[in-house]
């Protein structure tokens, strides 16, 4: 409502600017004229002569010339604007009062979005924080690190969180800083490589590959580094070499290694060997966190994801991820509830619903 009021005020001001001169009589009107300029030029010659800047004959010639111009100008002085065309003034008044608002409306209404409120970043980060503890926390840590960019421990904490939030670019930066300020470790190098891979949508770029190679150089048994090096080889089109790398990993590892299934799955993909059915817990398993940390992290992530989906429910993959996460946390009821929410949010999106059904089936939620 305020907006329309402001618009009305602005329109009134514009109309007033057009109407104002019409209402004033002609007495207040100032009009310059050529004669003033020529009179001044004559005075200028007098000054130049008295200062000795020009010679007397030149001055006389100039004076004659300017006087002639002055006379001509005085003769043909623009006739004082005497006309008062009431008819035209009336037309202009109508133009200002009707035409101007109409023109403004005709342009603004198809182009503008008067129903939309402002969405400054500050406002979004402010009140929204109540619903988004995770984002808020991250923002706080980021703000802290912006002021203290050499806090290596801070970067170490932040980096994996950013990676989980899919903010791979920021995560890569954070890992780099962690390496710079908290020291280089094999894990950090490998994590950095993973983040860079995330940036490239799953392609192990040469930058990422360099990081994995460094990680492997620091610790030849770093599972993540070796897994991704295998992946890089696969993406280079050398499936057999990749399989060799992964087979070597499996041979070396104990049967209880958390990343076993991931590697087996990958091996199956390149046709290296038939392996047990795929399991969903791919990357996190390889990251080798301890159980407590991981559960805490997941709870945080799940809450963030749930909030995001509440705001924008069109993300089928997101819903599936959420349900899967509840299942893993052993909370079947929550998962069911999430499925209901997803169906409600997707509404008429037939394609989305179909994908959701497929996903739910593979989760075994109904079974």
């Amino acid at each position, binding site marked *: 409502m305020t907006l329309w009021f402001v618009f009305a005020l602005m329109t009134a001001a514009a109309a007033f600017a057009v109407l104002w001169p019409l209402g004033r009589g002609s007495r207040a009107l100032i009009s310059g004229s050529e004669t003033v300029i020529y009179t001044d030029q004559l005075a200028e010659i007098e000054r130049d002569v008295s200062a000795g800047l020009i010679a007397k004959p030149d001055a006389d010639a100039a004076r004659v010339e300017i006087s002639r111009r002055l006379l001509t100008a005085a003769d043909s002085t623009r006739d004082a604007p005497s006309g008062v065309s009431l008819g035209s003034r009336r037309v202009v008044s109508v133009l200002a009062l009707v035409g101007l608002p109409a023109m403004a409306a005709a342009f603004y209404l198809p182009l503008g979005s008067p129903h939309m409120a402002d969405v400054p970043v500050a406002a979004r980060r402010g009140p929204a924080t109540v619903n988004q503890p995770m984002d808020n926390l991250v923002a706080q840590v980021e703000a802290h690190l912006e002021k203290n960019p050499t806090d290596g421990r801070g970067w170490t904490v932040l980096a994996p969180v950013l990676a989980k939030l899919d903010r791979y670019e920021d995560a890569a930066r954070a890992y780099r800083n962690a390496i710079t300020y908290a020291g280089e470790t094999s894990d950090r190098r490998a994590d950095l490589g993973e983040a860079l891979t995330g940036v490239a*949508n799953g392609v192990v770029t040469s930058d990422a590959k360099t990081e994995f190679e460094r990680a492997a150089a620091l610790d030849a048994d770093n599972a993540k580094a070796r897994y991704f090096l295998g992946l890089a080889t696969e993406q280079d089109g050398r499936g057999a070499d990749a399989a060799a790398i992964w087979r070597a990993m499996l041979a070396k590892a104990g049967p209880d290694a958390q990343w076993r299934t991931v590697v087996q799955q990958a091996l199956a993909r390149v046709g290296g060997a038939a392996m047990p059915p795929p399991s969903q817990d791919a*990357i996190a*398993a390889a990251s080798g966190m301890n159980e407590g940390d991981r559960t805490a992290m997941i709870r945080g992530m799940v809450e963030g994801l749930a909030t995001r989906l509440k705001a924008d429910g069109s993300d089928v993959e997101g819903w599936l991820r959420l349900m899967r*996460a509840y299942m893993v946390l052993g909370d079947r009821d929550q998962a069911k509830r999430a499925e209901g929410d997803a169906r409600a949010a997707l509404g008429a999106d037939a394609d989305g619903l179909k994908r959701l059904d497929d996903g739910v089936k593979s989760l075994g939620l109904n079974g």
Partner: protein
Amino acid sequence: MTRKQRRLTMIGGALCVLAIAAGLVLNALRDSIVFFSTPAMVSEKKIQPGTRFRLGGMVEQGSLKRGDNLAVSFTVSDGSATLPVTFKGILPDLFREGQGVVAEGAIDPAGVFKADTVLAKHDENYMPKEVADALKKQGRWQEGADGKPVIGVSDSAQPKPVVTQ
């Protein structure tokens, strides 16, 4: 001098200056402009060694070699033909393998393009217009929604690290 004579003097002077300028322009246009070619056009038009021109195309993957004393060599390709290029000096910030490039120089008798300038780009999305046009003609250029070349990433490569558990 009468008014007419003065006028003629001035017009004559102006014409003289314009004639000189026209001469300078024509002379300069003959000697100091450089044409733009892609490797395919080089063989097609049989450009003579020693003729300066601008070579445009993509830097071929894996072709960049650095030698001593800032000497570099790489291969420029336009999809149908390639041309080896040598250059001595510092390459611009955004010079990459697999990216568009424009080099200025001439072919030596051995058929190697000796560049004395490799043009800097100022934006990672920027593709020299000549190169884009030439590649488009050959159907090698797919334009994405935002004008970037589309890089195909097969889905099988690797699911991106997702938030599972």
